[in-house]
């Protein structure tokens, strides 16, 4: 009898407690949205949509336009994807399809380690190693060979959009490659065997039997990497130059949404200044939410094995 009554009290209480924990996750997201919307209302009422179209950032005169930051975030992230995607997919294909078994463990361990290094250490490394290399080798080389495009013009300071793109690429390679690896691993073995049996070479097998089946998931990994790059703060802040200007050249300094928050938030004086910064945070939040949800959805469809099969 005693036992039964304890059941009746214990189980509902237990369920309630863990339910509260689970609800806390929904609550956290709600809290984030509420705080960002609430604290950015002032700026939203003052500037409306002009906030995202204006390129003047003048805390003293209280004129705020976020365009240079949006531009910087987009360009640095896309640049990072451009560099990281081929490398990350190459590494994933190598580790799942080509590499000898005993290399696989160490290789994935190393890429995991790369993911565990804090952003600020990447930034530190970029300042002391990457920037000098850019300054004295890569930038003069790019200016000489591709200077006519206009993308690689101006004095080679090291600091700038290009440095930000490269350090971001190094940081997102592990994410993209580990998700790609996961997705490639769920492609059924008989797909590979089937294509090989038709007389395909190993590359043809990878192209037709593996990559084609996994493309939705790989896309998901790429978008997840994009989400990480968009929100990345410290390493970018340390090398991008932090100047709110829109320049065509990748050698020129820029500024990102996350960087301006890092640099100015704790010193923001005045309600409207703070509110404008929170609005940048809100915009960054919304973009990363959409990007991550999309990525999550794509990866889920593949690893849960629903669509993406059948059309070889």
């Amino acid at each position, binding site marked *: 009898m005693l036992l039964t009554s304890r059941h009746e009290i214990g*189980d509902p209480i*237990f*369920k309630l*407690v*863990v*339910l509260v*924990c*689970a609800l806390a*996750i929904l609550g*956290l*997201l709600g809290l*984030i949205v509420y705080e*960002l919307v*609430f*604290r950015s209302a002032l700026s939203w009422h003052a500037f409306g949509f002009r906030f995202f179209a204006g390129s003047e950032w003048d805390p003293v005169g209280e004129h705020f336009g976020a365009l240079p930051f949006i531009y910087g975030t987009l360009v640095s992230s896309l640049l990072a994807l451009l560099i990281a995607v081929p*490398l*990350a997919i*190459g*590494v994933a*294909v*190598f580790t799942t399809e*080509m590499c000898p078994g005993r290399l696989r463990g160490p290789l994935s361990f*190393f*890429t995991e*380690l*790369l993911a*565990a*290094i*804090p*952003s*600020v*250490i990447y930034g*530190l*490394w970029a*300042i*002391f*190693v990457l920037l000098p290399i850019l300054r004295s080798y890569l930038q003069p080389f790019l200016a000489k060979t591709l200077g006519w495009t206009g993308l690689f013009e101006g004095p080679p300071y090291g600091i700038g959009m290009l440095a930000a793109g490269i350090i971001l690429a*190094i940081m997102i390679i592990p994410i993209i*490659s580990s998700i790609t690896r996961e997705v490639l691993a769920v492609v059924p073995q008989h797909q590979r065997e089937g294509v090989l049996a038709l*007389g395909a*070479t*190993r*590359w043809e097998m*990878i192209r037709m039997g593996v990559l084609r089946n996994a493309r939705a998931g790989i896309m998901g990994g790429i978008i*997840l990497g994009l*989400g*990480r790059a*968009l929100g*990345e703060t410290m390493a970018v802040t*340390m090398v991008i130059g932090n100047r709110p200007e829109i320049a065509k050249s990748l050698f020129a300094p820029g500024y990102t949404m996350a960087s301006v*928050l890092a640099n100015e938030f*704790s010193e923001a004086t005045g309600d409207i200044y703070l509110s404008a910064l929170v609005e940048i*945070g809100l915009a*960054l*939040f919304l973009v*990363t*939410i959409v990007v*991550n*949800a999309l*990525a999550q959805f794509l990866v889920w469809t593949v690893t849960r094995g629903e669509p993406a099969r059948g059309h070889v």
Partner: protein
Amino acid sequence: MSEPQNIKSHAGMQPISWRRRIIDHFMTGLAVLTVILVLVPLVAIFGYLVYRGMGSINWAFLTQTPRPVGEPGGGMANAIVGSGLILAIASLMGVPFGVGAGIYLAEFGRNRFGDSIRFTADVLNGVPSIVIGIVAYSIVVLQQRHFSALAGSVALAIMMVPTITRTTEEMLLLVPQALREAAYGLGIPRWRTALSITLRTATSGVITGIMLAFARVAGETAPLLFTTLGNQFWNLRVDQPTAALPLQIYTYGLSPYDDWHRQAWAGAFVLIILIVTAVAAVRFAVRHGTFGSA
């Protein structure tokens, strides 16, 4: 598609054409090249970090507080302790919620509501840390009217929850259903089964998740910039601005002083040792722990 024709032309024992063979070798070479291109920066980062870190770290660094601007010497003892304090409070807040939510998802969450929690956790995982910093700023700093260690801990705790939730659920689901049924069969209530049988069986896996979350937030700098703010002196009060190792690395790294650069590297070295130890311990536990072999 041209596949059927390919098949026809190679239906016999004809060798693969040299063109396809060259493309195959070329692609293999390309894949090896990408691996090298990815490993070079990794080795460079680690190598440089160890080289500069080993050369920079000394007793003063580990035991003294920062000297005034521009004066060589001193250390980051207060930042190391401050980071420990911030992380400890963050774990105290984040771990129970994360584990609780994980238990909910594993034991009661096989439905659409559970899926929505899962999805939210995954999305929360992708929220930029600087945005979490803003939220911690507005719910703690603005209420208390000054920067504090607690605000930083709140930010880090928010970041820990989703990671811990997802790994805890994953680990609990690996526990065989028969174990739960056996417990129910003995008349043990569900809450007791979940805590003393399921969670206990999965302990090493759950700890793995906690350590991963810990390692992830240990090096976080962005959410601390305008929450804990940093401090040149000792502080153990949670409601006061506190020094943190990542913040100190950031400020010193950007400074124009050689000795501060040296200390930034020493700090980075200490931080990475902390994190790599956590990650390596996790890998070891997963591979050799009671759970990995179960």
